[in-house]
């Protein structure tokens, strides 16, 4: 099953701002079927995944890693490009995507701790081990831990949403990934 995006000429009133200018993302264009959800979800997604006090590089590490672990084709493809644009190297992206060496891919302890944190959130069930919590606390402030956890768990929600609804990857993204050897 795939859910067809709402075309521009059928965009409900509350969805119209998302159709102004460029075409809306497949996430917005499918959420437009339920405009009151779009109306709150997109600002939340923007706040959680977009620019904030936490560096975009850290956010993209969390987003790409969670998307890989939840096997969301749409999100992995899309955020591989975003991660490259945020300065992650080819080897870092490949490590997160599990198609390259993962050991020592990241120099900084806080980035290695973040990957472990995302792995625990996306793979695990129940409480997170005390040792990992302590490791995160030694690398990040409480506010940063909250935000990175929201980034990761919001991504997990979107991973399942995009996969379940069969959202299509933007052709421009595929072209870029081919050029990078990461398609």
């Amino acid at each position, binding site marked *: 099953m795939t859910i067809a995006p709402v075309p521009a000429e*059928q965009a409900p*009133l509350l969805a119209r701002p998302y159709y102004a200018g460029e075409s809306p993302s497949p996430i917005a264009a499918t959420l437009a079927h339920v405009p009151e959800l779009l109306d709150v979800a997109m600002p939340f997604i923007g706040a959680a995944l977009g620019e904030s006090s936490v560096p975009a590089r850290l956010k993209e590490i969390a987003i790409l890693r969670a998307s890989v672990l939840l096997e969301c084709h749409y999100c992995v493809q899309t955020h591989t490009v975003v991660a490259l644009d945020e300065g992650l190297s080819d080897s870092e992206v490949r490590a997160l995507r599990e198609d390259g060496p993962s050991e020592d891919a990241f120099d900084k302890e806080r980035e290695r701790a973040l990957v472990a944190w995302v792995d625990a959130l996306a793979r695990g069930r129940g409480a997170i081990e005390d040792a990992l919590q302590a490791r995160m606390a030694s690398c990040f402030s409480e506010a940063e831990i909250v935000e990175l956890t929201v980034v990761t768990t919001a991504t997990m929600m979107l991973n399942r949403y995009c996969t379940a609804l069969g959202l299509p990857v933007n052709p421009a993204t595929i072209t870029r990934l081919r050029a990078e050897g990461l398609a």
Partner: protein
Amino acid sequence: MSTAKLISEGRLGDRLWFYTNYHCNLRCSYCLTESAPGVPRRELDAERIRTMAAEGAELGFQSFGITGGEPFLRDDLVAIVAELAALRPTLILSNATIFNTRRLRELQALEGLPVSVQISLDRPDPDKNDQMRGPGNFRKVVEAIPRLIERGIGVRVATTLDDPDVADPQEMERLCELHRSLGVPDCDHVVRPVIRRGRAIGNEIGRDVVFEDFEPELTITADGAFATPFGPTIVGGRLDTDLLVTRTTSPLDVPASALMRAAGAASDGQDARIGIR
């Protein structure tokens, strides 16, 4: 800002509309909803109508409107109207072609309640009228109007024309003489253009409109809440969503407040309403 205040200030229409159903015994050439016999009924559950009407009265809506489809095809329509009219004056849009002896008898349940029926009558001549609305329509309408008035039901006549601006004045005068003779005064006669939505698109008739052309009137359907009763139209069997407000209909303040946000965003610098009612 509360819904009641928005209504009192005229920023939100004071009538709460319900699409009770989409099926109809007619197949009019300009029907917004492609209504006809056998189409999906999209019926609004009676209990939901009652609940939302009570919420609407609480929120400050001053009257209710019922439309379709042909609402009187529902067996429970009169019972629903009786409950709504006990809360607020209620207007029903009907083609008035199915008021047989049984249905007229059922209408006695509405005696003394503030109920009106708005009936479509487009031309003063049977042949021209029936071209748009189907064979026998004119005769049935002309017979039904006095019978409804006799039973204490208020009657309004709605005339829908492809372009009212170029209507033949003599023909319009004969139409007005006709509705007056049937007991409907001029103040209860509305003339409006065909809206190019629904079946009018395929027939290439009517006026193109945008959201800003309409007074915001909260309209509840089985598919969600819309910004105007001209919104939940059907084209090729598919529901239009361009005037959809929310899928949520209850609690009613969810679509009411969403509609006002949408109207506020759209009305900046806009004053293009063409007074379609």
